[in-house]
């Protein structure tokens, strides 16, 4: 039973509840004005796991981190309402925020982990707005820490962690040293609701705001978005009666 400080990352993502995502008229991105922002579902699972570990007294403190504009503080509050102890808001807004990608976030997390002397970083496996699935892995590489990704079961054993990973072939059991980075997959747990009394109590918990420059991180993007377009409209299919018809049609379309 060893006590550690745990840093749990919470990514606010644009939860596009409406399937009608609109591309901006100038094709530089999607419209985000007024769209509901909420905590990334995989990050909710990560926060839940962190809070569970704290409740089992295996770790000392849960710190929720979010990178983004002022609204990100709402997402941190939800994490605080679920049981995190304090929050760190890394203030990135405007153009910087639009270009913020996994590389920049992992640099920020690595810097914070060193600053906070964290022993464990728990993140969601990927964000549902960009589906990158890179931040956890990059953070581990930058810190030179072991990583346990797609975790569906986590247990601490002394100063090592037993992990079950969901992989294409089935389930993989691994044991990794601490300090480590773990990314949460869907079946790790079912996150608790942030109830109203907890939201009210969370208003009293501390959120500290820092800038990436304070951490020595440069957030300029290495990528340039050239164009964003809607996927092409799905064309109607065609029914054919016989195999011969199919071959004829394929030849006509130049596919054979």
């Amino acid at each position, binding site marked *: 039973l060893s006590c550690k400080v745990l840093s749990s990352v919470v990514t606010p993502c644009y939860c596009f*509840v*409406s*399937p*009608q995502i*609109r591309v901006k*008229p100038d094709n530089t991105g999607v419209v985000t*004005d*007024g*769209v*509901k922002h*909420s905590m990334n579902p995989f990050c909710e699972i990560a926060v839940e796991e962190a809070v569970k570990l704290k409740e089992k007294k295996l770790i000392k403190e849960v710190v929720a981190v979010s990178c983004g504009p002022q609204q990100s503080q709402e997402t941190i509050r939800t994490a605080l309402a679920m049981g995190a102890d304090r929050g760190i808001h890394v203030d990135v807004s405007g153009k910087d925020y639009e270009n913020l990608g996994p590389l920049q976030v992992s640099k920020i997390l690595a810097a914070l982990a060193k600053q906070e002397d964290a022993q464990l970083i728990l993140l969601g496996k990927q964000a549902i707005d960009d589906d990158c699935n890179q931040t956890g892995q990059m953070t581990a590489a930058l810190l030179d820490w072991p990583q346990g990704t797609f975790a569906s079961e986590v247990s601490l054993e002394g100063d090592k962690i037993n992990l079950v990973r969901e992989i294409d072939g089935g389930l993989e059991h691994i044991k990794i040293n601490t300090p480590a980075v773990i990314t949460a997959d869907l079946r790790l747990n*079912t996150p*608790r*609701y942030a*109830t*109203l*009394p907890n*939201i*009210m109590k969370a208003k009293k918990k501390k959120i500290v705001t820092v800038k990436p420059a304070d951490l020595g991180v440069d957030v300029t993007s290495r990528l340039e978005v050239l164009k964003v377009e809607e996927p092409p409209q799905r064309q109607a299919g065609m029914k054919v009666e016989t195999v011969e018809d199919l071959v004829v049609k394929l030849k006509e379309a130049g596919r054979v």
Partner: protein
Amino acid sequence: MFPASRYSCQAHRCARLLQKIKTEHATPQLYTALHRRACSTVSTPRITTHYTIHPRDKDPRWEGVEMERFADEADVVIVGGGPAGLAAAIRLKQLANKHEKELRVCLVEKAPQIGAHTLSGACLEPSALTELIPDWKERGAPLNTPVTEDVFSILTEKYRIPVPILPGLPMQNHGNYIVRMGNLVRWLGEQAEELGVELYPGYAAAEVLFHEDGSVKGIATNDVGIAKDGSPKDIFERGMELHAKVTLFGEGCHGHLAKQLYNKFNLRENCEPQTYAIGLKELWMIDEKKWRPGRVEHSVGWPLDRNTYGGSFLYHLNEGEPLVALGFVVGLDYTNPYLSPFREFQRWKHHPFVAPTLEGGQRIAYGARALNEGGCQSIPKLTFPGGLLIGCSPGFMNVPKIKGTHTAMKSGMLAAEAIFPKLTAETLDSETAGLHVPEYAENLKNSWVWKELYAVRNIRPSFHNYFGLYGGMIYTGIFYWIFRGKEPWTLKHCGTDANQLKPAKECTPIEYPKPDGKISFDLLSSVALSGTNHEGDQPPHLTLKDDSIPVARNLGIYDGPEQRFCPAGVYEYVPLDTGNGMRLQINAQNCVHCKTCDIKDPSQNINWVVPEGGGGPAYNGM
């Protein structure tokens, strides 16, 4: 009274009236899996599992579950984060700051963020806003589109009869603004937070709490973590109790808590039943060449017949992009159960006067909401010990103007002004534990709200004549435009909307054209655009008092009108798995919280209750 005997009585009544209907009488002890499986082989499968119909204290699955609730105290609790609730909150805090008093004001709202459940045309009369926040322009209120053109038409199937809007007619919009109400409400929320109001979006008020003396003590938010079959999940958590000296109920049109309060305090004994309409709305990004910012278009007539109240609106917004807000309103006192407000809306868009605006455009949003039309004849008693009703919940809409936001906001402000001195008085002068503030109702009667509503009180009821729409317009022309509503009589409405439906066999089905996918659309793709969603594993919040009535009565006599009046496809009659007969399927996840079913169900069997907070539509600036 145990649920078992309640079912027996109702079922026997059904059986007597409608020949043999076999219904399973559920006895409380048998809510086991076994019994549920047995139920499904009988003609009325169990539909409703909500605890408001099947109480949990008699349910063995809930034995031993911790039901204690955390409670907190505030000075004022406001239910509903719409224009009325927010105006009241803002006014209370303004008064508190001015008089240097501490006041804890908590506002709960079922939408996941303030403005996400707001839907309105809308042409705003800025009078109330200017009274509330005189420097709204400097503060960046989203009133960006002053009305520049006002057009009114009577439509026939192919043509359009222009109607001049003479100054003094209620639908004249000079000085008003076209707004995206969701954005205005969101801005009001920001103003409220700045003043120190505690806003809690994502938490629905599910229950009214009472003191022992019967006065209102506050509200309790919804429980979370109840499974679809009504049993507790591992993550079950009780809602929280918010106690207050006085509670303001601003749930909007046909609120579910207001419905309970009407019964408990007999608030409707001296007024007429409320009458309603359903409003459906879409936002379109149109071709720039067709865009005329500031233009307001209204129409009546086609596709509705002269005896069905309703009409359309089309507003060109001016917020930097060629956006129009358009929609259709149908009075819910329509008589033909085959009428589908959604499909009337879709076919109206094809009219030669409307379609050209939309050609080449793209639909980006859809939603629907009921609105009240009863005017001052239908306003209930507004105050009761411990609480008040504000906004569209009691209903202050000026129907011919089609505006209710300015009166809703003013009612919120008047409520705040009436409560404040009582709250901050040296001694709490009240007979009951919850404060009774009858001054609010008196102040409202003396304000411009009442004068305005009184002047137009006869316009809507004047449509109930043989000439329908045309009779109503003539009445408006003579008595409102010339005589300003000073006639000494007050016309009555026709009774509740639910009672107006004629049996299906007396009516002809309406042939609606198929949607073309460019201007008109099908229901399901429209519902998808509303962004509505609910946690799937929760009891359906469209509860039925009696599960057997839909097939027996609604389908049997009225051919299932809920399949047509629901703008979200929640109700479907599907064949039973056993092959013979139909059952009602409730797709509760589609619900857009419009309340039309609770209003129009001819059997008044549907009781809309609030689902888990945070669920529902995700309107963005509607």
